[in-house]
């Protein structure tokens, strides 16, 4: 442990890179998810097909392959992305494809009656979406969003494979120069876990605020910290 101590500032720099990539990628993933969800719900067949194609492409193959593809193949077509841009793009599109299903399911969970009421009241479509549908759908999306955010944090470790100096990459550098990989990787795992807890906590705060904005009671249901009583009784285990 002591041998690692001088490298802690270096690792913290890696934490910063990791968080930057995570937030940038999630900031890309959310609009991508909404756009893909709208495309999939579009009345136009071509739009539905295009949305489905993007989603299936990104979900069907491995993120590692996509990352390498963006890094090694795109330049061949004259698209020279920096490693950071390539990483954010791949992570954002990938997670956005997954999250679009959440968005779609949440929007669909709003009853047909609510939608019909907006029509029967002649409400402008944008207002109907922004002020009637979205406030009811958004609270449903927040707990899965928390999962997506933690997933993105874990996902971001992959960018170390394309030479970005994030937390994982720096762990590798220190491990090589010190020869004490166990301590370094153990420490880095703990750092990631702490970051995941922090993000989960932040999402709980976010959930409260969204619930209040949407006019719901502001109890959070998402996250690591809400302990629910298991429905499996103690006697099921012989006691």
């Amino acid at each position, binding site marked *: 442990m002591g041998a690692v101590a001088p490298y802690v500032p270096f690792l913290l720099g890696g934490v910063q890179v990791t968080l930057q990539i995570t937030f940038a990628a999630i900031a890309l993933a959310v609009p991508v998810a909404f756009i893909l969800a709208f495309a999939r719900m579009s009345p136009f067949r071509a739009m539905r097909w295009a949305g489905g194609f993007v989603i*299936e*492409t990104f979900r*069907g*193959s*491995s*993120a*590692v*392959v*996509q990352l*390498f*593809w963006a890094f*090694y*193949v795109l*330049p*061949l*077509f004259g698209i020279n992305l*920096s*490693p950071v841009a390539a990483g954010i793009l791949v992570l954002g599109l990938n997670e956005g494809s997954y999250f679009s299903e959440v968005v779609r399911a949440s929007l669909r969970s709003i009853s047909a009656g609510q939608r019909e009421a907006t029509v029967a009241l002649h409400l402008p479509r944008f207002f109907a979406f922004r002020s009637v549908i979205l406030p009811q759908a958004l609270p449903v999306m927040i707990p899965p969003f928390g999962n997506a955010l*933690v997933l993105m*944090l*874990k*996902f*971001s*470790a*992959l960018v*170390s*494979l394309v030479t970005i100096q994030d937390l*994982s990459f720096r*762990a*590798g550098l220190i*491990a090589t120069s010190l020869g004490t*990989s*166990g301590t370094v*990787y*153990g420490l*880095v*795992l703990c750092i*990631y*876990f702490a970051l*995941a*807890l922090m993000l989960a906590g932040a999402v709980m705060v976010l959930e409260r605020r969204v619930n209040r904005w949407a006019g719901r009671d502001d109890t959070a249901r998402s996250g*690591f910290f809400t302990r629910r009583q*298991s*429905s*499996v*009784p*103690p*006697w*099921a*285990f*012989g*006691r």
Partner: protein
Amino acid sequence: MGLRPMTGFSWDWSFAWSILPALLKGLAVTVQATLAGFLIAFVGGLALCLLRLARLPLLSPLAWFVIEFLRGTPFLVQLYFTFYVLPNYGIIFSPFITGTLALGIYGAARAAEFYRSALEAIPPGQWEAALTLKLPLSGVWFRIILPQMWPVALPMLGNLMIAMFKDTAVLSTITVLEMVAVAKDIGVQTFRYLEPLTMAGILFWCVSYLTARVIRTVEEKHAS
């Protein structure tokens, strides 16, 4: 970023054809790692889940922590940790076995959550009903609870298997010659990245798509 070779703008079918056997061999390794890892996840996940729910002193909180820790940290770093730490304790496996083990353990933590949500989806009334039937404990589990858990858990486990299949690409970082490692090696040696990486992506897509289809068909058959 260094020098980038500027060859390979256009798709070369004969080159693609020539590297297909190597990629398929890599795919075989990928599939083996997935299946072995999934087996660990399938069994280990159930054990972790039951341990967590059993409310045993020390063991249950420990199981809970292990599950959450593994689910809260990147598989890549878990893999490095396993790969570099095991030998310190004199445990020396091949990279393939180490990788599969790490994949299986990570999968077990995720499977444990699926098992738990499937168990908790069973209405409490079922437990109460089982109690009034005065069945032995094994009867409660095997005749009432588990038959209701599987239909919920299996689709989630199927998706887990597909996710694990895609995660195997990470094993390339510890010199396991699975498909992505093979594709990258071909790129390094020939300076052609377009074909091997694209083909690897498509092969991944095909296998996971087919698996998803099979799972859905089985699911629908079960439902009816």
